[in-house]
């Protein structure tokens, strides 16, 4: 008697591609702590400390850039020294596995730790005759760990995903922050977490080469996705607060559920292969054992019962995206599913301008638009032609995380849509328009959807109505000054339209002043805050406590108005 080896094909073992670079904690003997540079007579020295406990950190890598990068490990007392430096300013960075440096924390969780990131931004650290000792801080990482079992039996290869809410442009977005899987003891550890609030989801199979039974006559059990602590979706999930250096334990006891065989064909493959994913309630693709033949498009897989969006993505020979998706409810075996790949959606865009007699600024030959990008940095553009509108789409759909679209469109005097946003994948998007000093967006519609107040939802295999944008050339301008004891580098001004906090605009402060062009006429509340990082300021409830300190202005078309606002500390209301 024998049993046959199972031959994986198609999605052969999804090898987790992880770079082999970064390591960890504890301690041994002191290593080199002085680096000789031989470019001058000065020293730079100091100590690396744990930002939370103040304890010195040994074997942290301190790097400086003087024509090239030099690195040294701190000694057993956290001390380091560079000798032979020329006078001047240089950048100093510090890192160690298991810790974040201040730049990592500032950049937010999207940026992975471990790169050559430098502490003090701007001009760098001064080196010269009287250079004081430097204190470099590292913030210990957080870890979420735990065990997953069923009836006391540890479960291996169970996928563990870590989610958090990210704030971008004052809006709230669910994001995946980590992924791991249980080991043979049912244990998992998700490390490299910045301080914050996290949600843990487990379920599905990490191991894509698990068996697929030939028939549903045999019982096959699996584990559906579940959030800590036994919630079906994110909204019911228990948040886990992770403070610096904290190891938070989350254990799961899963109930097995029936697995069903789902099979079918992906049509329209262009010989470039395709990915097939099941997107459950979490909004991110779940992993199940899948067989896929990239030549004939046939697939079969085993999934726990439930509602999914079955999503296929492929590529055309020119590299453009093809996609297909199909909502399915799995409560028995499903076969003969047909998914036909189609080019991603294109939306026609029609921009019109409503000119009014007393438009201002028509004598200007250069126009700027400005805004704040995902990382919180301002950007400015120069549109010599005043009749161009910028448009920014930020996906709310989690599987499209980081796939933002920015386009610009010319005003079309003929009234016929001439341009389009190409290659948009199905999903939900937040649409924003960078401000322009020559006009404001009076209305933006896509069919019946008011893009100034609602999200844009794009379905597959459907023709989207055009986006119709109407600009008006009498925008108002708001200027102001900030009264504050000590101006803070990160301070910003929020200009909140009354009754429409979702369209709040952010202005930068230069030398205690701000200026914002391109506002639509209306009533506004103006608030100055020491920082807006991590603040969901497009949520009326979040912004409400600050309105007491706001200046209220009523702007007419083409009006210039000036206000004086008081700087408010976030979280002290």
């Amino acid at each position, binding site marked *: 008697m*024998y049993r*046959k080896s199972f031959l994986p094909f198609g999605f052969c073992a999804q090898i987790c591609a992880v770079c082999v670079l970064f*390591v960890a904690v504890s301690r041994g003997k002191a290593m080199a702590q002085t680096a000789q540079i031989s470019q001058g007579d000065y020293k730079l020295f100091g100590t690396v400390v744990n930002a939370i406990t103040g304890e010195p950190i040994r074997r942290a890598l301190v790097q400086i850039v003087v024509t090239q990068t030099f690195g040294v490990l701190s000694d057993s007392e956290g001390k380091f020294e560079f000798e032979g430096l020329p006078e001047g300013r240089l950048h100093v960075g510090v890192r160690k596995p298991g810790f974040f440096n201040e730049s990592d924390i500032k950049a937010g969780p999207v940026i992975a730790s471990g790169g050559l990131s430098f502490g003090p931004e701007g001009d760098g650290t001064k080196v010269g005759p009287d250079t004081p000792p430097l204190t470099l801080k590292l913030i210990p990482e957080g870890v979420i760990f735990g065990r997953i079992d069923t009836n006391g039996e540890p479960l291996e290869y169970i996928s563990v995903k870590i989610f958090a809410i990210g704030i971008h442009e004052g809006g709230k977005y669910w994001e995946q922050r980590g992924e791991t899987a249980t080991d043979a003891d049912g244990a998992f550890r998700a490390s490299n977490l910045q301080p914050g609030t996290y949600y843990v989801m487990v379920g599905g199979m990490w191991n894509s080469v698990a*068996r697929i039974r030939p028939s549903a006559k045999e019982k096959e059990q699996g584990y559906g996705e579940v959030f800590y602590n036994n919630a079906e979706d994110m909204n019911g999930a228990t948040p886990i607060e992770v403070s610096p250096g904290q190891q938070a334990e989350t254990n799961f006891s899963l109930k097995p559920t029936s697995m069903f065989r789902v099979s079918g064909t992906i049509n329209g493959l262009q010989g470039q292969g395709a990915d097939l994913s099941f997107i459950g309630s979490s909004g991110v693709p779940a992993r199940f054992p899948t067989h896929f033949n990239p*030549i004939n498009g046939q697939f079969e897989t085993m999934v726990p019962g439930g509602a999914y969006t079955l999503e296929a993505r492929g590529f055309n020979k020119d590299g453009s995206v093809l996609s297909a998706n199909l909502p399915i409810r799995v409560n028995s075996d499903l076969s003969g599913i047909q998914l036909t790949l189609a080019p991603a959606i294109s939306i026609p865009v029609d921009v019109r301008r409503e000119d009014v007699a007393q438009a201002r600024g028509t004598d200007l030959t250069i126009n700027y638009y400005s805004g704040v990008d995902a990382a919180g940095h301002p950007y400015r553009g120069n549109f010599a032609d005043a009749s161009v509108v910028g448009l920014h789409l930020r996906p709310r759909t989690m599987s499209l995380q980081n796939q933002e679209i920015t386009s610009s469109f010319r005003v079309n005097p003929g009234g016929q849509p001439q341009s389009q946003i190409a290659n948009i994948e199905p999903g939900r998007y937040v649409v924003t328009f960078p401000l322009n000093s020559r006009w404001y967006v009076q209305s933006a519609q896509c069919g019946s959807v008011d893009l100034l107040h609602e999200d844009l939802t794009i379905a597959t295999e459907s023709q989207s109505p055009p986006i119709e944008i109407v600009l008006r050339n009498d925008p108002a301008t708001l200027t102001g000054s900030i009264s504050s004891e000590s101006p803070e580098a990160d301070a910003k001004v929020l200009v909140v339209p009354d009754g429409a906090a979702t369209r709040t605009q952010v202005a930068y402060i230069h030398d205690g002043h701000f200026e914002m062009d391109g506002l639509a006429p209306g009533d506004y509340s103006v608030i100055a805050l020491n920082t807006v990082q991590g603040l969901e300021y497009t949520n009326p409830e979040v912004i409400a406590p600050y309105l007491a300190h706001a200046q209220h202005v009523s702007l007419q078309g083409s009006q210039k108005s000036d206000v004086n606002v008081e700087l408010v500390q976030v979280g002290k209301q």
Partner: protein
Amino acid sequence: MTMTILRMLCALALALPLSAQVNSPAINSSPVNSALTFRISGAVVNAITGQAVNQAEIEIANVLMPEAVQTMTTGSDGRFHFDNLVRGKYQLTGHGRGFSPQGFDDHFGYFTAIVVGPGMESENLIFKFRPDASIYGVVTDEAGETVRNAQVMLFRQGIETGQEEILQVKQEMTNDQGRFLMGHLLPGTYFVAVSAQPWYVQVPQPHYRSVTTSDGKTQMVPSDDDEQNRSPLDVAYPITYYSGAIDSSEATPITLKAGDRAEADVGLSAVPAVHLRIPTNSDQEHIGANLSQNVFGRYSIPVPGYTFQPGNGELEVNGVAPGNYSVTMNSYGKQQTSRTEDVQLTDNMKMDASQGTPPTTIDGIVSLDGQPAPTDGFVQLYSRATHGNLSTQISGKGEFKIAADDLKAGTYDVYVFNIPHSVVTGVMAEGADVAGKTITLKKGTSVQMAITMSASLGQVDGVAQLKDKPKAGAMIVLVPNDPDVNASLFRRDQSDSDGTFTLHDVVPGKYTVIAIADGWDLEWDKPSVLKPYMNLGQKLEVNPKGKYQVKVPVQ
């Protein structure tokens, strides 16, 4: 019953859960008397401790209807029973907490099926559950700090493929605590290897100095003052084996019995990294170098390193520990070329500039009984000497194409997987030598290949007998003539409780069937090992779609 040990498409496949799927063998069965029903019963015990296994899931299925599975879960006495069974042959498998799926009297996937019927012993079976073993440990660096994201590789010395050899069975990354855990291991002899780079490594950067050219202009050229600027943190970890060796021949074996949980901590120690410089032809803009290290004389383990082109016509490879490596240089210019050299890397060494060879290309066609083979099939050329393999999926019209940048010249067995009940019956080639189902490839050649497959296969049923009585649990081997070049023609099975066995999908040809009582530790595809058993074997010739009955004495 028949079996070809399928060479794995993935090197790691042995480590992955194997499906317990069984093909339906066509056995002779006399008409079933439905009035008579039978029973399979017994108890599950831990093979090591002898204790009854609680909560074990036991499954049986008639081999004619393998999808109709009956299951039951044992209680604290470990007992199981399946009543009202019709006469026939049943596969008996099970698993439990700490016991990976296994069959009754399991030998690497072969097991003894239980035959029920008048006069058959099918009750009071003792199902010895082999507990899983595991190896765990922590990887630390020269300062005693734990190393995260180190790659831990597990090797097993075994004979499952017919000859004693060391196979890689698992690969894992250490977690944030530097820990790893390799579970679900069979008893056997294991080796642990760790590959990592120091997290703090300071890779040398190209420096330039300004020179004044003859026409008075200032130009930046790469400077050679390497040693002067070398950071003490320009270091690397050699591939390190438990317990501290940096040569696989000095690795400490870890012998696991069923149920063992062994600790294998590995300490890494950074050594100054070497710099390898490879001259390149300046017209070749796209150049890459990959380093790999041979471990256990066979496996080629990729070694991470840093490469850059300083702009002086050289390619520099940094961040690698001194030692013996295979360096593969690929250039992707007008003509794609590749060359591999085995070098002993020492500090600041230069490799000779020698011309690479273009990739070896194989264009082939696979036919199944005269028709193009279906696109489900995978062609694999497997080298028994190096464990290297070349594989590709069959495209439309039965064609396939393999382009190997870095071919190891040598002899490869030809397999086609994933086309059920059909096997390779012939190999022909232009541009390469063929013997049996093997092809011998040279570097930089262009090969035309034709693989013929057939579904017109024979079947050999038999009974293993010891002193004229049926013998269960014997290893049955179907040995082809010219076994050296016909590895793919071997079939194996284990005799069932009534001594019967079936060898499926037998390619027409001449064979000898042998039965060995305690043969599970033998290198069964080595002719020299099999020779003592051949005289008492049953010789037979198999014709297309022929069915044969043999009696084989157990030796």
